[in-house]
């Protein structure tokens, strides 16, 4: 499964309203709930929070990848949030995060989960592409960029 298969407008939010890490994670899980991608909001939130508690998933250059595994989903779920002002995500370089990918997977799909995360890692390495994503003004624009 390719990451692009998961990217549709309803799972992209611009701009994120929350101004702190816990709020952003809740907001992204809520996007999945509102999009009909998940039923059990609390279980998904707990899975992502549990991983985040071990160490922040805030990477460098404004990217964060909160993720987790839970039986509350049967397939991979992705939500993307953009915060033009940036959110303190306890990132590796101390910079605020602007582009946040939240990924949740069921326990029995570790392979596709790892490959989706690896795709995000490669996206994170492309600074020009990330700049384009962060400057997007609509969900549609994000989807189009991802599909280019």
């Amino acid at each position, binding site marked *: 499964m*390719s990451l*692009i298969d998961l990217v549709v407008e309803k799972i992209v939010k611009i701009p994120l309203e929350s101004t702190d890490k816990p709020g952003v994670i809740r907001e992204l899980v809520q996007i999945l709930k509102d999009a009909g991608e998940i039923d059990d909001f609390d279980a998904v939130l707990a899975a992502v929070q549990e991983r985040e508690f071990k160490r922040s998933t805030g*990477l460098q250059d404004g990217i964060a990848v909160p993720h987790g595994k839970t039986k509350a989903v049967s397939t991979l779920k992705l939500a993307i949030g953009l915060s033009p002002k940036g959110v303190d995500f306890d990132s590796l370089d101390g910079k605020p995060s602007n582009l946040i990918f939240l990924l949740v997977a069921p326990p*029995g799909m570790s392979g*596709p989960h790892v490959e989706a995360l690896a795709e995000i890692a490669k996206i994170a390495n492309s600074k020009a592409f990330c700049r384009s994503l962060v400057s997007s003004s609509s969900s549609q624009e994000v989807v189009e960029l991802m599909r280019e």
Partner: protein
Amino acid sequence: MNKPINTIMVYIDGTEPSIVAAVYAICLASYTGAKLIVHYVINTKAMEDLLRASIFLEDEQVEYEHDMSADADKYLNYIDELAIKKGISIVQKRSSGSVHTEIENAVKENDVDLLVVGELPRMRSRRDEFFDETERAMRTLCCSVLIVKNEDKVWQVYESLV
């Protein structure tokens, strides 16, 4: 005359398209009498990349590797059961590393004539051409490659096997 297909290998990764590919490969093995290798690759290369990118913690990497190993057993055994029901014996193969490299190596080592893979995602981006491990393997392999489509028809063919 030499048979065109003596050895078939199907690559599975636990996704539905890869399982359908394996089912079709069982059908092909039944009709051709070819040896069937079912190959699951534990993508440790991706996990190393994630650890390097600080997305994974070390214990998370260990946990995922363990999970993927369990997934490999689960899916290989599932395909084995499907094959046995149709009187076909398969060779289970699991390896670890970079998916496209492991597929290429297995094709060479086992003198594979035909690689069978699941349907590729319909939506593609330019980035996917570089990221998709199966597609990357297909471009560089020395054997023919069959992409399996139409899940319903594949299962019908499988069910019709005696």
